[in-house]
């Protein structure tokens, strides 16, 4: 069911991992593995407040142990609704930490060396035989996983019983005629899947066949398990079945890395419970065996706690280790009373808990919102930070709030720091030079400006144009706003101004014809004009085409579709979203919808490649003082960098964002 599971250090060293399918095994070491994508795209970007990440058909869930800097990751096929993954993560976390605590502490310490002197001793003292240390973990993991899987299967089954009524004929058509005797085969993704399906179908079929006699079956089982006081209703099946299930798994302790074979499944397949005649003797034997079990009390209520399950089900040696570990953990928890808490405060080794952080968290959310960060983003960022702080130790002179602030600051820096190059000039030059030798005509670099109405698309387009002209490039402006009256005239004025102003490094004589406007009036198809403009630029040796589009609200679907058409037919090198710094909660919605619309329609239009927003321009920066939260909201939503900031009325009022400034402004009181 699972594809990949790993336990690793935040620094990148994997302590233990296992892939359950060959496909996952293959990708595990490449940079496109689910774990790597998770870290790259979610965790480092401050998105760790969300509890699920999806990529390439995988769903990935994770949990942290902050004081030991561990990450537990589980990846599985997205289409599977695995309910037990969260439980599994928690169980793994508890067990792993308790079992390997001393080793993990030394390990983490070895990765936090501040001076060279004393550590040599530590290094030689410990032997870093990771495989040996985590040897027994493999088996424990199997036990935990199996327990949870069984439990989940059980739940699903009981749920299914009440809801699903499929016509038997339909199942028969799906079912291959020889499904009953599928040859047991070795591990392999496809075979596993087939068996799984076959098994499920078989189970369903059996159940439908036996539908007439469920009460009888229940009674029979009841007689066998006479010690218990369950009622002869269909509901009472659940605990009984769990019991029988349990004894089966006990018999199957040798489950290794390979996927379950058909024979394994057969033994686990309790759907035969309902099949009357041939299985009856075995059934009875099973149940009587169950009654003898000492662990009866634990499972009486039909709810398994992971730990309890572990107590009962692990083999002799591992169970003793486990019980020891768990008892120790409990004792420690109970003894950690008031006194030790006070002492911890005094010695400065206080460990942060969720409760400590709660008031600070709320305060910080409010603060961020006051700085004009969208609410949704403020929540997510703060929760991500608190997630990364729970379980950490704070220094003696550091209050919780200052620790939080510090963590928030570094988190904000990470979110705002661009992950792709914002060097527009370089990418323009690279494109121009790469096309030059191959063909006579070089492809111009095209930039499309998109955004809602009145945010300053045309104005900032002209600023960018001025900057490009200053860098000695020939710019063609395509007036693709064919809707708003005066839009073309506005650009014409800009072009006139720029061609008078535009003095490049090569002197004034060269400046004539550096900037031109490509216009086709109003009411025409914008995509067509853009296309003509690009080919015009190609013929007339322009370097850059700036495409101005009409402003549109993100909810206006026909207009968004038109924009996507413009983008997909012309495939510009950069799509810049222009947004104003004044925007608050709306920023999230705007960007999400623009990005979504561009992606959806561009991928649907047959070019195959999804195109989203490549960068942002934040305008009217000078109007917001230190309420610069929009910058954070925007970068968080898209993950794309803010290329420019518009901060005034003249052509030179174009700036690049400095991350440290923005972080400072956001955090300042």
């Amino acid at each position, binding site marked *: 069911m699972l594809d990949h599971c790993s336990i690793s250090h*935040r*620094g*990148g060293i*994997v302590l233990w991992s296992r892939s359950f399918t060959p496909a996952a095994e293959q990708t595990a070491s490449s*940079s496109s593995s689910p774990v790597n994508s998770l870290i790259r795209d979610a965790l480092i970007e401050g998105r760790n407040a969300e509890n699920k990440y999806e990529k390439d058909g995988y769903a990935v869930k994770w949990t942290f142990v902050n004081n030991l800097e561990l990450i537990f990751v589980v990846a599985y096929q997205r289409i599977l609704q695995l309910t037990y993954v969260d439980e599994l993560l928690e169980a793994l976390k508890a067990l792993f930490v308790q079992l390997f605590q001393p080793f993990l502490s030394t390990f983490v310490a070895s990765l936090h060396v501040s001076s060279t002197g004393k550590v040599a001793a530590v*290094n030689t003292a410990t032997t870093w035989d990771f495989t040996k240390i985590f040897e027994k973990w493999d088996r424990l993991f199997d036990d935990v996983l199996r327990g949870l899987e069984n439990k989940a299967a059980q739940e699903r089954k009981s749920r299914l019983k009440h809801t699903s009524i499929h016509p038997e004929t339909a199942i028969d058509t799906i079912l291959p005629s020889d499904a009953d005797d599928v040859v047991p085969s070795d591990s392999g993704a496809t075979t596993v899947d087939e068996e799984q399906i076959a098994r499920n179908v078989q189970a369903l079929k059996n159940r439908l066949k036996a539908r007439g006699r469920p009460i009888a079956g229940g009674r029979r089982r009841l007689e066998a398990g006479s010690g218990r006081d369950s009622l002869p209703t269909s509901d009472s099946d659940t605990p009984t079945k769990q019991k029988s299930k349990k004894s089966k798994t006990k018999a199957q302790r040798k489950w290794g890395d390979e996927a379950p074979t058909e024979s394994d499944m057969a033994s686990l397949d309790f759907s035969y419970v309902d099949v009357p005649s041939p299985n009856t003797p075995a059934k009875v034997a099973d149940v009587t065996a169950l009654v003898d079990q000492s662990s009866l009390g634990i499972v009486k209520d039909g709810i398994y706690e992971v730990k309890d399950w572990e107590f009962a089900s692990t083999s002799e040696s591992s169970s003793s280790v486990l019980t020891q570990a768990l008892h120790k953990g409990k004792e420690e928890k109970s003894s950690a009373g008031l006194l030790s808490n006070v002492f911890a405060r005094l010695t400065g080794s206080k460990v942060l808990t969720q409760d400590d952080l709660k008031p600070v968290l709320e305060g910080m959310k409010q603060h961020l919102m006051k700085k004009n960060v969208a609410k949704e983003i403020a929540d997510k960022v703060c929760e991500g930070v608190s997630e990364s702080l729970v379980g950490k130790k704070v220094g003696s002179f550091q209050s919780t709030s200052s620790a939080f602030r510090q963590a928030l600051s570094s988190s904000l820096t990470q979110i705002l*720091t661009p992950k792709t*190059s914002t060097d527009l000039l370089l990418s323009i030059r690279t494109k121009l030079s790469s096309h030059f030798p191959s063909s006579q005509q070089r492809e111009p670099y095209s930039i499309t400006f998109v955004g809602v109405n009145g945010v300053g698309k045309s104005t900032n387009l002209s600023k960018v144009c001025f900057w490009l002209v200053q860098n000695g490039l020939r710019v063609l402006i395509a007036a693709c706003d064919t809707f708003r009256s005066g839009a073309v005239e506005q650009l014409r004025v800009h072009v006139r101004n720029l061609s008078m102003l535009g003095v490049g490094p090569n002197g004034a004589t060269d400046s004539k014809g550096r900037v031109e406007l490509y216009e086709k009036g109003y009411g025409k198809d914008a995509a067509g004009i853009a296309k003509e403009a690009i080919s015009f630029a190609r013929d007339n040796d322009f370097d850059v085409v700036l495409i101005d589009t009409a402003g549109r609200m993100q909810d206006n679907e026909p207009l968004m579709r038109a924009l996507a058409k413009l983008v997909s037919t012309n495939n510009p090198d950069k799509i810049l979203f222009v947004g104003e710094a004044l925007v608050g909660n709306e920023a999230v919605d705007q960007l999400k919808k623009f990005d979504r619309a561009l992606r959806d329609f561009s991928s649907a239009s047959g070019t195959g490649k999804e195109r989203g927003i490549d960068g942002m321009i934040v305008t009217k920066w000078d109007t917001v003082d230190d309420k610069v939260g929009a910058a954070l909201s925007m970068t968080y939503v898209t993950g794309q960098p803010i290329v420019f900031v518009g901060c005034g009325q003249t052509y030179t009022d174009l700036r*690049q964002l*400095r991350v440290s400034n923005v972080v400072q402004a956001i955090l300042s009181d």
Partner: protein
Amino acid sequence: MDPIITEEAVNHNVPTPEILSQAKVISSQTLLLVSLLLAVLLAVGFFAVRKRSQSKGSSLLLVGPSGGGKTAILSTLVYKRTLRTHSSMQTNMASIALPPSTKSLRIVDVPGHPRIFDQFREYMPDAKAVAFVVDASTISRNGAVVAEHLHRVLHVLISLPPSQSPPAFAIVAHKCDALKASASATAEQLAINRVRTVLERELDKRRTSHAGGVGVESLGGEGDEGTDLGGLECTGNGEFRFAEWEGGEVSFFGTSVAVGKAVPAEDEKGKDGLAPFREWLLEL
């Protein structure tokens, strides 16, 4: 001390003019002595400070884009076995002993994710050596991205304060084992050549695009952060060559590690894919 003496002298010479000359002699003598002493002290202090700041750092910085193999190298050097790794989220700092000598070295492995890559600046003042780790098997595809990273490192290297002695710099072409050795060259040489040519080409592109360009001012006044990167100056005819780079010597190594294997015992070190790199570390 000085103010007390002069004060004394002033006290003396105001009421009695006879002692004036004597006091003057004494004060001038003591002054001379004291100033001499001070000068010596100052000089000693200055040299001590200077020596401390001039003394090389004690860290080896592993930098480079994500997925280059920095953490794998660290794990091989520190734990003597190559563990599986994934993208790092935080900086690792471990210390290693270099076997033949008694020296130990701190290794700092800075994550290569572009959002946290800039953290390497914090560790620069303590750097004895900087190794830029590149995945040689994918360099042809990722040339531009790698060059951007490298450019930032070079920029920081060249703009280090003069009080700090420049750290040794090496470019490590990692994952050589992914390349096939040809008849004329081993996989290591092949990797080194490939990495060198790709990076030189890309860096030269960056250099020419910056030359004569008008950058956009960064918000909030001056500060060279991020906007205008220098550090690509060469002594030669302008084209970027590592051999002619103004920042100092650039060494190249081809290395490889095998995931999941323990490093062979000390006596057969030659077979280790990191051997040339280790030798370089020893020479530092």
